[in-house]
């Protein structure tokens, strides 16, 4: 599946912060070089300190993720922008399905997932979106 945007953002922010280096005053070239070297060393050390806990968090979490029994299910969340392929998977029809088949599948899946019967509004929205997307490009 795709990486959720909110999940990837914190890692990017940490990387950007690690690359930040403070501005130096105009000095002699030798002095500037010495300063830059020491700044790089400080930034490098700090970056390592930022990475270490995040790396630990990663390995701790990976160890705890269930492995057996769940591997046949599709991984990850929904696609950020629904594709025709995903729409077909949601409705349980082939991407080349006819309009009738799409309508039929939509009705069936929606009845099962109806919010009025304890279904999830978010899933219902995805089901409707899938139908709209399939119907947009279907000619038959």
């Amino acid at each position, binding site marked *: 599946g795709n*990486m959720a945007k909110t999940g990837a953002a914190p890692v990017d922010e940490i990387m950007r912060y690690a690359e930040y280096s403070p501005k130096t005053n105009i000095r002699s070239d030798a002095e500037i070089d010495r300063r830059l070297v020491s700044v790089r060393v400080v930034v490098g050390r700090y970056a390592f300190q930022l990475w270490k806990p995040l790396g630990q968090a990663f390995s701790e979490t990976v160890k705890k993720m269930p492995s057996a029994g769940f591997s046949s299910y599709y991984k990850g969340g929904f696609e950020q922008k629904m594709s025709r392929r995903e729409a077909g998977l949601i409705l349980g029809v082939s991407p080349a399905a006819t309009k009738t088949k799409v309508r039929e599948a939509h009705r069936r899946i929606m009845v*099962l997932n109806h919010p009025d019967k304890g279904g999830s509004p978010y899933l219902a929205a995805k089901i409707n979106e899938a139908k709209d997307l399939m119907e947009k490009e279907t000619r038959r």
Partner: protein
Amino acid sequence: MAKYLAQIVVMGVQVVGRAFARALQQEYAASQAAARARGRSGQQSAAASSITGMSLQEAQQILNVSTLSPEEIQKSYEHLFKVNEKSVGGSFYLQSKVVRAKERLDEELNIQKQEQNQQSQQNPET
């Protein structure tokens, strides 16, 4: 007599002052440790979202739970898992998302429990 009384009062004030300073120091250390624990659990939450490819927010939306109540989560999961069974004409893809959402929320509950355990270790009197 007054001189001795004065001495006792001064010593008393010093003892209280020192005890108060020590208490302040301990409070500060405890709150710093708590902040570190929250920071750690925030990182773990971000890591879980990244590894599973599902954010906490999406997991809550899929299972339609506003709070991380284990009972609410279990009830919603069981219903949504059942209605999306392939054998009754449901969508295996949707069922998968329901499963992954439950996994993600279980992981979040774990992370929160760890943070609470660490905090209670810092504050044994609470």
